């Protein structure tokens, strides 16, 4: 099972990962702010992740880690 982890306090809520993810695994939180005061990305459909690492590739702040099968 592929596992995506958002390093929440490194995220600036830019949404590029959400845009590029082919499986809608990620979304920008609308409920809580991170330490920087951004609404961070969060994993909303972990089981859908196919481990393509598109999110990791487009993240400007290397705020994502992926465990890939």
């Amino acid at each position: 099972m592929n596992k995506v982890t958002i390093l929440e306090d490194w995220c600036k809520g830019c949404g590029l990962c959400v845009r590029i993810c082919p499986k809608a695994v990620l979304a920008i939180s609308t409920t809580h702010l991170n330490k920087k005061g951004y609404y961070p990305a969060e994993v909303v459909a972990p089981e859908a992740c196919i481990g393509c690492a598109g999110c990791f590739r487009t993240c400007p702040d290397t705020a994502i880690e992926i465990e890939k099968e």
Partner: protein
Amino acid sequence: MSTVIKKTPVLRDVHLHYCPGCGHGIVHRMVSEVIEELGIQGKCAGVAPVGCAVFAYNYFEIDMYEAAHGRAPAVATGFKRVHPDHYIFTYQGDGDLASIGTAEIVHAAHRGEKITTIFINNAIYGMTGGQMAPTTLVGQKTTTSPLGRDKDHCGEPIRMAEMLSTINGSAFIARTALNTTPNLIKTKAAIKKAFETQMAGKGFSMVEILSPCPTNWGKAPAESMEWIGEAMIPYYPLGTFKEV
């Protein structure tokens, strides 16, 4: 057995100051990964420009210089002549390279300087607050082209990759973009090819990377990536312009 994809140690463990959705952070990661993969961290130095990436000397876990505006290729030349068996890259924006630093980049290529240049083209001056750059598109509004760039007034944007590829000293010149997964993959491959060109001592190498600047384009990050595809790529065609 699972593999973990995470930050390379060549990219220092510090928060980047760049705006949300800025392309610099993406390219910083790529350059760092290439340095790690080529195993040259111990013999690699970098030269930061003046512009948004002026703080890049804080972000790479290698020896770094901070150069005066536009002069990174000259600084890198000085370093490379002292340490010809080491590797060096300049990391420059379009104001730094395509405006004040044109003489330095043209002559670094002209001399076939064995250095690599990572050139971020985001069609604007970021650090100083969104002024027109030599790469600003016709009609593009900036703080110094408030009614949109007028080509009769200040000409059409400059295409550095094509220009530098006509110089014999250039051994590898490519232009890529950050707006799609295929283009992200090609960008890192081009950066790696540029460093390999330097390692093989073939001459000057540069990758021009079309990169988003959400803050100064006045567009959300996702929208900025779309704009690269819709507006920038048609004027700045992607591809390899020189490969020796």
